[in-house]
């Protein structure tokens, strides 16, 4: 690949960066949806009576067992077919967000269960009810313990935002395709540039989360947490 080709690619960098902004927006929206839903699902799994807990486990199992693309299609074309006017971006947030909640709920469930039961008893002995115990004793510990596995989930879903390509969201891979179709010789360098952008952003994201973990670190709380090498835990 000659220097000339790379200088041509360089022209498209702003376009690609704008498209990457879509991925980042998608990431933030879906991870927030997944976080809130995931915490709720985890709390249901741990604290609610059996039928409801079983339902939450089934939810988790469904969203973890079905491919992202199938979920994207179900949410986008399925909801459209049912007469809902839904944008591809919003459908992607829902599909990928609920999927992520299936993984995040597992992370939070593990963290919630690792808070020693004696502390729950201590909270009750002070007169705290269930909601206060969850809010002041369980979640502050569980959320801290969740940060390392959650970082894994974070970088995994960031990469998966590209799958929104499948339902027509003009995110970075689709933008790169548009460019490469019109400028065939640029195909390889353009996609290498895209890959490089992901490497940099993933690195920055993990660095930021590492900092967050350090800032929120509490002596004695790290004992139950395990770092995972897996794609996601």
């Amino acid at each position: 690949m000659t220097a000339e080709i790379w200088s041509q690619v360089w022209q498209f960098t702003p376009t690609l960066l704008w498209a990457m902004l879509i991925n980042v927006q998608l990431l933030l929206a879906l991870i927030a949806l997944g976080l809130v839903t995931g915490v709720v699902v985890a709390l249901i799994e741990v604290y609610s009576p059996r039928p409801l807990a079983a339902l939450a486990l089934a939810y988790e199992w469904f969203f973890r067992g079905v491919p992202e693309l199938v979920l994207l299609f179900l949410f986008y074309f399925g909801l459209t077919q049912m007469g809902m006017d839904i944008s591809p971006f919003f459908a992607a947030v829902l599909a990928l967000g609920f999927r992520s909640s299936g993984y995040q709920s597992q992370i939070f469930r593990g963290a919630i269960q690792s808070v020693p039961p004696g502390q729950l008893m201590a909270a009750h002995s002070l007169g705290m009810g269930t909601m206060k115990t969850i809010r002041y004793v369980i979640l502050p510990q569980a959320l801290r313990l969740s940060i390392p596995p959650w970082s894994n989930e974070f970088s995994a879903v960031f990469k998966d935002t590209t799958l929104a390509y499948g339902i027509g969201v003009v995110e970075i891979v689709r933008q790169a395709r548009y460019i490469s179709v019109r400028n065939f010789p640029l195909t390889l360098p353009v996609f290498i540039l895209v890959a490089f952008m992901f490497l940099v952003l993933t690195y920055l994201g993990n660095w930021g989360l590492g900092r967050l973990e350090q800032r929120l670190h509490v002596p004695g709380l790290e004992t139950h947490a395990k770092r995972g090498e897996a794609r996601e835990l």
Partner: protein
Amino acid sequence: MDMQLVFDWAWLPRLSDGLIVTMQLTGACLAGGAALGLLLSLARVYTRGPVYWLASAYVQFFRGTPLLVQLMIIHFGLPTVGIRFEPFISGVVAMGLNTAAYQAEYFRGAIQSVRSGQTLAARSLGMSPLQTVRYIVLPQALRLVIPPWSNELVYMLKYSSIVYMIGVSDLMGVGRTISARSFRFLELFIVVAMMYLAVVLILTFALRWLERRVHVPGLTTTGRRG
């Protein structure tokens, strides 16, 4: 929504053809990925210098970038430098290279969790380093790697659906084609989802069975015995 269509088996034969392609794709990329991943992990554990750095850079790159981008590079990018693959082959290559990086990390974790006393004992018997790896380290590491590996299998099965984007008629691709003609997206993709779920369920049970089958008392991932 017409639930009748969901339980009407009319789509099943064509979807099953797609499912077979999906499974071939998953099987091929996992096998290739296991071989390459094992080599990468050995390089990462037992070598220093350029080989180590090369293997590490490989793992970093393929874990740090989206599979879809890797697929695009291989299927649409490589032809610009004269390398062309059939869509199915592009899929196997991209997914194989990708899963190799992840599997390398599982293998590495498993190899490193084999206790160092085991290696010492093997060397004390006069085994060469290669023999030690072959007869002592790998038999233990491969057992430990089954749980994360099962996870990876399910991942690749699901991720294989991206190959429809380069024109492979896998389960996802067939579903896409039928739905585009029938406009029955919801019903069709519910069936597709259930087919993926069924395979995931069967594979999960099969691998649990395998794990119990090759289980050795006292050999655990957590290495609690220090």
